[in-house]
């Protein structure tokens, strides 16, 4: 069991009525899909807000960063970096800089 840290942007943690940084328990390999599954299970109001609820694709203006890398286009079933899986670094969910 891994404990993963996730940092949400303002709009999402206020939507979830949660803290900005969350901890999620991941039973299997720590991948983007596993983290988002756990996120949406714990905070169902975020379902559809980060990734499309039907296709599972990341919403176009949402980005994922961790360990100084842009993970936005990582395949959802690829293991995430060890430092993230070990809880030493958080997964940053970021709203892209766009619009007004």
């Amino acid at each position, binding site marked *: 069991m891994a404990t993963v840290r996730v940092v949400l942007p*303002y*709009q*999402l943690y*206020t*939507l979830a009525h949660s803290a900005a940084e969350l901890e999620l328990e991941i039973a299997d390999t720590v991948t983007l899909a596993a983290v988002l599954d756990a996120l949406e299970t714990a905070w169902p*109001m975020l*379902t*559809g*807000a*980060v990734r499309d*609820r*039907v296709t599972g694709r990341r*919403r176009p*203006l*949402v980005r994922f960063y961790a360990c100084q890398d842009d993970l936005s286009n990582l395949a959802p079933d690829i293991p995430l970096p060890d430092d993230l899986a070990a809880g030493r670094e958080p997964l940053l969910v970021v*709203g*892209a800089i*766009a*619009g007004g």
Partner: protein
Amino acid sequence: MSHIRVLVGTRKGAFILTSDAARRDWRVSGPFFGGWEIFHIAGSPANPDRLYASQTSSWFGQVIQRSDDGGASWNPVGNDFRYAGDPGTHLYYDGSSKPWAFKRVWHLEPSPTDPDTVYAGVEDAALFRSTDGGASWQELPALRAQQGAKWMPGAGGMCLHTLLLDPVNPARMYVAISAAGAFRSDDAGASWKPITRGLHSQYIPEPEAEIGHCVQRIAMHPTRPQTLFMQKHWDVMRSDDAGDSWVEVSGNLPSDFGFAMAVHAHEPDTLYVVPIQSDSEHYPPEGKLRVYRSQTGGRTWDALTDGLPQQHCYVNVLRDAMAVDTLDACGVYFGTTGGQVYVSPDAGDHWQAIVRDLPAGLSVSVQTLP
């Protein structure tokens, strides 16, 4: 003693404005849902403390929020809007066909009798209904079967932005869609028909086509639901046969382009519009913010200016941003893209700004509370 609650949706959050019946001193609450676009907030006529809000974002998608205490607290409910079956395609600007794709909820219309039943008009244009307080949503697909493959978006998106429920005949409802036109159902949404006879739109290939008119708003008075008023892209129209035919009543308006429209709470032939310069210039003619009132059901209009800026004013008033209360002296309200919300407590004769510096206004609805 009666009081008033004004629900304001803006580009960056929601605000609730409250006053006693005098409508002079206002309390401003908000922002709620800061940073999100709030396309519409509506209260249930059956339970005025039940509010629904459409919260949306290009980044994070659609959320429906519900309050059960008049807006003091909110909780997200369902945001799963799936078209029924294979959604098919509609026309796009370049003449190609594009698959239907849900983008956002433009308008929420609670049932007059059941607080848990609420309708949602969405982009890409379709009508959804929830019967469990917004937890789940089901499409009424017969609407898109009404020549949906011919529908095309307007510049603001292909949105179902107006839904009127007939207060006398519960099976009858009307919708308006930019830029597909207007439709009526006489069987609670099981089937629909276009109601566009008499409309003339010079900007579409066939100006009198059944489908393709850019209807901005439809309004009715609850005691005379056979009579409808329409603010079209250009032209103000009237129908006295539930939309089966329309006649133009633009009369002496300085421009018959516009978005917003409302009918007086107690006078079925008194209606309000806000003329806008043109479809290219979305601001009032001559830089003067004027509400025009007709007390003859159209054709003859008077400018209402007392308390409104009469120089250098270049705001817009969007289609869901005008409403009335039902106090004896009917109050009229509208919000602007400049962030002002105006009230007239005397049916339009005098105006004052409740607030002046909100984010750009998208919608205004009003509750008259006991």
